[in-house]
Structures are given as C-alpha cells and as structure tokens.
C-alpha cells in the first residue's frame, strides 16, 4: 500500500475519533453550530495563509481561536446570542476567505482542498497535528471530567458548586476550534460538521451514559472515516462526502434501532 493511502487511512481514524469526542460535548451543550462556524473561520485563515505564503495551519488556528474568543465574549456579555455571534464571525470570515481565495492564483486548488477536504492530501505534519490535539483532548476530558460533566448537566449547579462556568465554556470553545482546524484539510469546511454532529447524535440514541456516548460516538466516527475513505479510493470518488454519507447511514440505523 502506498504511503499516501496509509496516511489517508491513518488520518481518517484520528479524525474519526477526535471530531466525535468534541462533537459529543457540543451536541449536549447545544453548540454544534459553533463547530460549523469554526470550520468556516478556519477556512478563511487557511485561505489567507495560502494567499500570503504562510503555513495555512498557523493562520487557520489564529483565525479560529480569535473567533472563538470573540464569540465567547459576545455571548457571555449578552451583547448577542450565541447563534447570532457565530453568524457574524461565520459570514465575515467567509467573506474574507473568498477574497483571499480570489488572490491565491496558482494555489487556488490548495485552498479548495480546505473547502471540500482530501485525506489523500494530508502530510505527515497534518497527521502529527491531529494526533497531538487528539491526545490533548483525551487528557483534558479525563482530567476535567467532573467539571465538564456538571457544567454540561446544569450551568446553575456547576456555578453553585463553585465552578467557573464561563472559563470552562471558553476552554471547550478553544479546544473545539483547534480540533476543527487540524481536521479541516482532511474532511473539509463543508463536511466537517457531519462528523461533529452525526456520530454524537447516533451515539446519544444508542447509549445511556455520557462516557459510553463518547466511546460509541468515536467508534462510529472511526468506522465512518475508514469505510468512507476505503470506498472513496475504490470508487474513485471524493473522500469527505463518502465519510459523511457513511456517518449518515449509521445515524439513520441508530435512530431505527432506538424506535
């Protein structure tokens, strides 16, 4: 097997674990739309990096983290609701992204990769980045399990228990935006949302406790990633859409099983 196919399979497994873990929390905290918003701001950052000849991963991270903090601040200070704040950053980033895209010249196809995703385009650096973020996320979830559990169950009880709920939500937003950035190239801006939402939604139907929901969501994510990638290689079709469609079939099955 050629090394780029191995890389493709490897990244689809890593992305299949990472996005459903953060997606499970986003799903329960009712902030999945935040993930969609982050994918678009990260895309704008990547397009800027390509247009200016800077490493796109860096500019995408910068864009995503700045937007995450901006959305957190606007929401927390009650200047805007969360969905409206996301809408602002979403659309302004997309406007910038498209402007940068029009300036990428010969590299337009590189930028398009970030839009639709391509597991065959990922480099060793991309894989290392996803792996590092995945380890970090798993460590954070294990270490701050109590805080995440209680603040997701009830902000009021979390506050009454002395937790700094605002800080917890800022950190979950920053971690989510970083997870989105590193997976962007593999699954693409337009399709990333699918791996964030569908494995979590399916796992929610199939399980009864938070820990098992996260584990099952990751398994569904890995399965979708692997099967989607293999199908796309054999059928010579784009990977991102195949991964999302497999995840959708699994989610549909989960909802059938549950009824």
């Amino acid at each position: 097997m050629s090394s780029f196919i191995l890389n493709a399979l490897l990244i689809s497994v890593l992305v299949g674990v990472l996005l459903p873990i953060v997606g499970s929390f986003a799903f329960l905290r009712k902030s999945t739309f935040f993930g969609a918003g982050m994918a678009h701001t990260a895309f704008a950052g990547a397009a800027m990096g390509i247009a200016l000849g800077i490493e796109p991963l860096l500019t995408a991270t910068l864009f995503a983290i700045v937007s995450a903090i901006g959305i957190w601040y606007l929401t927390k200070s009650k200047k805007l609701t969360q969905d409206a704040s996301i809408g602002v950053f979403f659309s302004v980033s997309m406007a910038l992204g498209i402007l940068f895209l029009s300036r990428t010249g010969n590299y337009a196809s590189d930028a398009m990769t970030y839009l639709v995703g391509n597991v065959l385009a990922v480099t060793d650096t991309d894989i290392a980045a996803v792996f590092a973020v995945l380890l970090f996320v798993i460590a954070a979830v294990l270490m701050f399990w109590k805080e995440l559990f209680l603040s997701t169950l009830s902000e009021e009880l979390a506050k009454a228990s002395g937790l700094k709920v605002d800080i917890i939500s800022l950190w979950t937003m920053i971690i989510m935006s970083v997870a989105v950035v590193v997976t962007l190239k593999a699954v693409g801006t337009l399709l990333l949302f699918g791996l964030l939402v569908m494995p979590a939604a399916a796992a929610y139907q199939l399980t009864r406790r938070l820990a098992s929901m996260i584990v099952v969501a990751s398994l569904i994510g890995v399965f979708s990633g692997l099967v989607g990638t293999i199908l796309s290689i054999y059928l010579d079709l784009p990977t991102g859409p195949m991964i999302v469609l497999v995840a959708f079939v699994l989610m549909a099955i989960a909802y059938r099983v549950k009824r």
Partner: protein
Amino acid sequence: MDVIVFDNVTIGYDGNPVQRGLSFGVKRGEFWAIVGPNGTGKSTLIKTIIGLLPPISGTVYVLGCPATHVCEHRKRIGYVPQMNEIDPMFPATALDIVLTGIFPKLGLFKRPSRKHVELALNLLDEVGLSDKADAIFRELSGGQKRRVLIARALMGKPEILIFDEPTAGVDVASEEQLVKLITKLHSENGLTTLFVTHNVNPILDHIDKVILLGVGFHVIGDRKTLFDREVLRRIYGREVDIICTPEQKYYILPEDHHHE
C-alpha cells in the same frame, strides 16, 4: 447566631433592582417559605443567598461568610434548583447525578470513591428511589427527577437546604410525597430549610417564617402573615381565598383555579 442574615439588601441583575430593602435573619433549623407570583424575585433571592448573584447593595451573610465569597460555607448549602436549570436530556444514571453532589468536596482530578457511591445509594434509598440507582435520569418521571436532585443536594451533608419550586409540575400525589420527604429531612435532621413554592397548602403546618414577594415590594412575617387577606391581595393583586376546614386546617388559594 442566624445562619442567613440580610441587612437592607437590594437584589437584582446588572444594577436593575428586583426587590429592595430586604432585611431578615434565618435561625438554625427554621423552615422558611418564599412565595409570590411569577417574576417577583424568588429565584433571584435564592441565587443571592447561594452567592451566584452579588447583591446590588446591602450585606448578605450565610453561615458567617459573605454570600459571594467563594469559601467553605458554600459546601454546607444543599441546593435543589428549579427544574428548567437542568438539562432534561443529559445522558446519565440517577446514581451519576447524585454523585455530582460530592464534586465540590473533591479536589482537582479526583473521582468519587467507593464510599461516596455507598453514600449516594443510601441517599437514593432515603428519597425512596432505592430501585432506581441505575435508571436513566432522562427516563424518570418529574417527581422522581426531583428526588434524585434532593439526594444530590444531600451528598455534601448540608446544614442549609434550599428548594426552588421542587413541586412545580408534578401531580398532587407526588407533590404530597415530596413535601413529606422535605419536611421529614427538616424535622429529623434539623436542617435549615428554604422552600420556594406557588402552593403553600401542603407545607402550612411546617412553616416558621414566610417571605411574600410582590412586584417591587415584599412582606416578611411568621406563618400568620399567610392568613392576612389584605397582605395577600397586595401580593397577588387580586382576591385570595382562605379556607378553614372544621379540623382547623387552613387552605390558601392564590391560584386561578376557582371563580373565573
């Protein structure tokens, strides 16, 4: 010494007062009812006592500590919030939810121990849910969910128990059982109890003091205040019936379920 002391306190959000000039002292072991129409500040008062909301002016002391200080006194308060503060779809067992009650007493990165699980199971037993430890929280009835949250509030071995409308939206029989549980906790363990409710009838016999909240004003007094027609009319802005049965049981009917 009073366990909760309000000295000329104005409560509200972002500098907008909801109630002004609250002054009272709650003695250890007393049972206080907090009553009034929607939006008059019952939950706001509770949040101020718990320290989630700083008072706009005046001083609030709870167990000898300023309420907003994040210090040890907070762990001695058991709080059962209004049901809309809890995500009804959260995936967890009843036992998982009860165990969150010990979280404030656990250090960073620490998990509940075997001992905590035993305590949680005992508390589930105490609230009448011994067979529901592994039941899924989101699949429990409204009354059972309240019991789980009461067990949760007891995990930290509190000295003050605070209930924000624990009986809202449950049927009459479940309400009676919940009230029985809460009054039992109060009388057997001598827990200072604050109880927000729209229906004082089931707790009339247990009330030591009441805080009646109207729109922008309040009346604080003992149980008899609840039988004062004039006070009730001002608080609710309408006529309120007081019924006295031959067995000397009083019923106050402030809700809209009669003569429309």
